[in-house]
């Protein structure tokens, strides 16, 4: 264990040197190769002790100590955590490439296409670029579904990993919990990936995902706000649990609406972003079209709610009444 801790500390130092110090000026191919070997070793450690909380804690403790020291030694040092070590090679690479002191000869080796004895290092970046570009070239051809090939592939990976974790009896929530929330970029993409995951061939991880979704209302809400209607309809067709959750969400949205006299329309005041009344009815009608049985239940429920609101037929008094009248018009 001593040796392991020493090596972890050493690798953290290595990362710091690679990215922040002028030492790299003297690095040559064998040095770089050794550096990557150490990084790979740490990645291996991570995978090995991933399910061992006790050892993980010990390593994290060591990292805290090392970080403290390195912070003092290097200006601009960023702490390294246990989970960072999963991508240790990547961190090393980023550090090196961003370090202005890295000799151009070393950069050339990393991007070179020729073979050499330092197989892991030569052309390391070239391979990455090749992979990324190949994906970009092929992805438009594989776009057979509404979600796109990228999301499909990532969904597959997500489900595989969830499945692996669950079968080992490990904690799987953290993968989903720590995803960035919000409405920009990564979060929006995550919604598409979840949709793709739920549209996949039936597998055991989907139940876990659906349960998690039901608890994480905010993600569910974001999905239903940002995804295209056609996709949502697909989801309701394929996953009954999702359909129920979606239905509940629509009702919740409706109950948050207030009638605005100035606009002559039902609007949401406390949410962000808002859902319009028209969109809400669109969602409902789309849902009814694909699952007619739901219509009966929903109308019954809404009727009961309308009655509790006073059972008026005047527009603007009960959101339930207004919804029902829209439904009746579209019969």
């Amino acid at each position: 264990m001593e040796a392991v801790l020493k090596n972890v500390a050493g690798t953290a130092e290595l990362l710091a040197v690679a990215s922040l110090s002028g030492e790299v000026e003297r690095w040559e191919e064998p040095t770089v190769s050794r550096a990557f070997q150490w990084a790979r070793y740490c990645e291996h450690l991570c995978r090995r002790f991933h399910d061992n909380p006790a050892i993980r804690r010990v390593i994290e403790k060591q990292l805290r100590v090392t970080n403290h020291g390195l912070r003092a030694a290097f200006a601009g040092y960023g702490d390294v955590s246990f989970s960072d070590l999963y991508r240790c090679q990547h961190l090393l690479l980023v550090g090196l490439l961003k370090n202005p002191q890295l000799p151009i000869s070393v950069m050339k080796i990393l991007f070179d296409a020729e073979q050499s004895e330092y197989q892991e290092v030569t052309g390391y970046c070239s391979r990455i670029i090749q992979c990324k570009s190949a994906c970009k070239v092929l992805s438009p051809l594989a776009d057979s579904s509404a979600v796109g090939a990228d999301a499909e592939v990532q969904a597959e990976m997500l489900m595989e990993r969830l499945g692996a974790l669950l079968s080992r009896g490990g904690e799987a929530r953290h993968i989903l919990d720590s995803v960035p929330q919000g409405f920009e970029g990564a979060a929006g993409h995550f919604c598409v990936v979840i949709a793709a995951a739920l549209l996949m061939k039936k597998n055991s991880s989907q139940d876990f995902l659906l349960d998690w979704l039901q608890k994480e209302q905010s993600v569910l809400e974001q999905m239903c706000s940002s995804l295209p209607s056609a996709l949502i309809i697909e989801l309701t067709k394929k996953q009954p649990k999702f359909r129920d959750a979606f239905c509940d969400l629509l009702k919740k949205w409706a109950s948050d609406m207030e009638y605005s006299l100035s606009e002559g329309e039902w609007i949401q005041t406390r949410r962000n972003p808002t859902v319009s009344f028209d969109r809400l009815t669109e969602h409902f009608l789309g849902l009814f079209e694909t699952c007619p049985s739901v219509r009966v239940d929903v109308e019954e429920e809404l009727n009961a709610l309308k009655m509790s609101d006073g059972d008026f037929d005047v527009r603007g008094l009960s959101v339930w009444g207004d919804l029902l009248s829209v439904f009746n018009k579209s019969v």
Partner: protein
Amino acid sequence: MLPTHPQSHPGSCFVHKYVHLDEMSQPQPLIQLPQTAERAPSAGELRFWLDKAVCWGQADGPDARKDASLHLSRLKDFLQQVLTHINNMSSTAETLKRLPLLGQFLGRLCWNPYVTADATGRRLLLQCLWGLYSEHPGNAVERTANQWIRKVLCQLATEEDDAQALMKKMDIPPKDYHLEVLRKMVALLQKSIGKSCSCLGDTNQRCACDNILATSEACVPLVTCPEAAPLISALLQQQVTCVRAALSEDFLDAVSSAYSSRCLSLEEQAVVSLWCHNLPSLEEAVLRLLDCALTYSGPIPQKQLEQSLLPKACAQHCSIFLVVNDIFRSILKQADGTECVKYFVGAFTGCFLREVALQQHQTSVSLKAMFPQSPQSLLLPLLTRPTEMPQQAWRRHLIWLSSSLQRLTQEEEHGDDNSSRSGRFHTVFEAWFLLVQCSHWVQVAVQLLVTSEPEDCAPLLWLLTFYHHPTNRGHHRALQLVRGKEAWDHLHSLFSVLDPPLPIDLLQSLVTLLSPQPQPPPLSPLLTLNLFVNFAVFLQQSLSASTEIVQMVLDRCGLVDGARWVLSSLQIRMNQGDCLSSDTERVHLRIRALQNTLTHMHVASSPAKE
């Protein structure tokens, strides 16, 4: 697909390239690439390509992609020009002064996946960037360029997009992630290609096959990407049931050159499919195998023939066999049939026939379809292997073959109708070609000559002479037959000598027949050599006596390599069971002993492969 009539196929236009094979150390490229002029790229050209790059970056539809893929090859040529220009300039500042848009251009290309996925494109692009990097920047322009280059490279290798934020949470390192995504995407596409065609010939309907052309075009830059190999294999092997399931020509060319330069590994069936789709790749494979055979230090081993996959491909697709034979014909006509090429053709055909026998249960192609140009009456007699016939029948069989061939040649020579002369010559050539393909019978003839009586030699000698001298140019055949009989007589006498010393005059006559002459002698020395070695092996004489004779003769005429060759080919035949096997073990021993002797002899530089 390949046309079925061999004589009119496009391959015949490549005939003129199949010359001087003995002098070639590498197969000539069948398509000569034009040398890009080493002139500097003009600002106008750069502008053109920059506009293209901008266009490809902005639009993302199938048209933009198709355009990028179609222009890839010319773009790479242009990049090479740019690279040369950059290297010729003395400084980056000067380069950028001449071509101010260069930075923008290269920068845009960095984000074009077609350029960066392609091995050559990527290499050229990176080399251009290195070329612009200044070790000792002398001014602001160069310093900025340096910074920019570092930044771009860092971004290219490490930039993460939205999707990768998710991947971070899954604790997958980026490099593994990209690999896995690529593999899964390849698997997705492979599945969609496997889907059978549903359009039933209705050209207005959309068809699953529409994607195939686009996919093949997209795979052009990916031929050297190992993860894409399964997809490429699948594309090559997909059933051609639909008119729209076409593969792009660029794709076939790219796959062919990647495969032949060993940058791409394909499954066996994919290679065979490639040859079916793309004639130049088949031709190149044949020439490469032939070159291999010619540079091998002995007769090419059967294993190597099999490993080339060509015999198997020929057995699976008759059309491939026809093309291969056309190539053989061209070579034999041009190079006047060197011994090695003739042997190779025979060995190849033997391997092919074995593959056909293995395939019999699957397809049944008639002999006529496989050998459409050969005289039909000779087909079955020649293709039947000696092992398929009782040994006692061999002599009679060979006599029949010999007389049939003699008749054919006589018809050719004595025909007085000029207009059909070429037709008859064609028949003789085809008969001879078939004999070359079935050279096992020629070797049996040589072997039988060893144990023949003098009065029984004639038909066998005629066959042998015809094999080595198919055309009766200058009407030398009569003389050749006389010489052949002389050689036989000398050998017969020499090897019958019971006590030493060996008669010098006999030895000398033999050596004269075997030695290279200032003008081509009427009889090929290789015929005599073949006969000579067979005498040494098969005659019931003491090994030491035979060995002595062999040593003395070869000492004087120097054809040690040639003799070794004959021994090796005898050994191969023994292993295949084509020889008189009354005392196989003894023959094996004799061959080995003689080989030993030859190895220890000083090898005079003798052009054995004449």
